[in-house]
């Protein structure tokens, strides 16, 4: 997963794909000196589990706030400070304006940005440059990418079962 772009990740419900898709990337990014920012995570990011999956948890910084303005502000500060390599944010009700501001904050910065939102917000004029939807059908997980910059929608990709 290339950094320098922002992703908008839509999940139907917590607990079916979500962060396990990102974990290998996070484990790799966390080995440096830069921070991984977890903004408004839905539950406690469980240190023993993350550590056993190779994430350097010394570099994790959790920001607990459920106000949209503060979430976006925190991400702006993180990308401006150049001391973060990734910012993962959870906000179910993010509106287009917030997503656009979020996108602006990350543009041209060397930072991986992921925003988890609700599927109800899926619209045609989605400002995020890349959206993927993790859904579950036929006892398998599928990743759907309805929009991406420089390219049309592509068909769903079955997600290999990830081990915990």
């Amino acid at each position: 997963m290339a950094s320098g772009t922002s992703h908008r990740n839509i999940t139907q419900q917590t607990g079916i794909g979500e962060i396990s898709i990102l974990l290998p990337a996070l484990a790799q990014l966390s080995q440096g000196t830069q921070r991984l920012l977890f903004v408004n995570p839905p539950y406690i990011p469980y240190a023993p589990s993350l550590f056993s999956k190779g994430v350097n948890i010394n570099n994790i910084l959790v920001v607990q706030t459920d106000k949209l303005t503060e979430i976006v502000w925190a991400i702006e500060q993180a990308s401006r400070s150049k001391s973060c390599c990734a910012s993962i944010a959870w906000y179910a009700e993010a509106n287009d304006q917030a997503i656009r501001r979020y996108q602006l904050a990350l543009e041209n910065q060397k930072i991986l940005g992921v925003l988890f939102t609700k599927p109800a917000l899926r619209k045609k004029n989605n400002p995020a440059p890349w959206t993927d939807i993790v859904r579950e059908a036929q006892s398998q997980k599928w990743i759907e990418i309805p929009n991406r910059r420089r390219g049309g929608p592509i068909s769903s990709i079955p997600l290999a079962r990830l081990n915990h």
Partner: protein
Amino acid sequence: MLWTCINLPNLALDIFHIGADDNGAYVVTDSDHRTIIALNHQAQKVGIKTLMSLSAAHARSPDLKVHHRKPTHEINTLKQTALYLMRYSPHVSISIPNSVLIEIGASIKLFKDARHIHQSISQDIKRLGFNAVITSAPTPLAATWLTQCGVETLIHNKRELASHLDRLPLSLIKTQDNNPQAFQAVGMRTIGEIKNVRRASIAQRWGYDVLQQIDKAYGNTPDPQKLFELPQQFQSKIPLNFPATSVEEILFGVNRLIQQMCQYLSNTKRGVSCFKLNLLDENLNPHRYCLKLSSPSRDAKHLTHIVKERLNQESIPSRIEEIQINTETTESLSPESKNLFTDINSKSPNDQTLIDLLSARIGEGCVYGITTNPDHRPEYAWKKSSPSRQRQHHTIHNRPTWLLSEPKLLSTTSGTPQLRGPLTLIEGPERIETGWWDPHRVRRDYFLAMTQNQSRVWIYQDLPTRSWFLHGIFS
């Protein structure tokens, strides 16, 4: 040894003069409120002189402004000057009533040469708004005497010093009875003349102390000075001329105080990790804010930025009349040394800035790092940690990525736990039975379970009550 003496001859006058407009004659009276001890240029023009009585001065200039002398204010001003000069050398001493002595000999190499320091000090004093006589000499007493005679010079060695001292008037030497005319009766006027008199006679006639002073001035005997010590904590305040009504106006004052605080911290080679800001409103009600930092700092820009973020979050009373700042905890902070090889664990200064900014706006408890904790109870196997600390961690396998802050009670249908339909147990049980030594004893059987829509969750059965709880979510 090279001592620089900064003599402020008009100190009593200057403390009233700084920041005030300079028109009209004004004088400063002694503690008896009658005798004039200092006066400005305009007062001199109308014929007022020092030691004149106040009534005589009023007769010459009816609209004369009169200040009473403030000795404590004078000493505080000397202390501030000493603090300011500490960047040249830690050997600073205050000489009452109106001088500051600083030993610059040890700092010559750092500032290239003595003349350079000398000039730099006089520029600094001018910037502070004082009239000063500045002289450097190999002994502190010689430097003091020279400034008292108004001589501004830089004397490098003792031989050169002797020729200067020989010409100074004898009235500089303090006798036991403090009589300025003590030496006149014997027909001597300069220090050079008395130096040629037999030592025994000097001691017999004027006391041993006079001899000591001469020896100290010429550098024949050591003259240790009581060094000025920095206060343990920094404390300063600034009254605002006009009440501040916006955060920007408050920050203007805060910035000045923070500059002073950073000067203090830099002199003590320390960084502040917690400081208090107090804003007094028009009714003198205090509004206190405590600002904590993730690691000690003395970067004025950074500290001001944190105060700004914090004040933007608070509702501030409309009219602020005074701003106070004091350091709460400081830690020693040596200047950063540069390594040839970069340390992979070292964080950039940006990192600290980011953490402090986030904490200032979102709240201290809401910005944290995470760490593992050696405890078998899942809720105690992790804890929040200070983000700037590096720690060693423990590995435990088969743990979920997410943990619920409070276990959620699950309903059961004929003994099977339900979560959006019945749950299928995949792995387990893993019995965790520990914590008997404290009130949070646990006896649980943990299972990895699968929901109807393929989500994997971590549930447990509480053994004493037999109820099922959801405790974690695997991704």
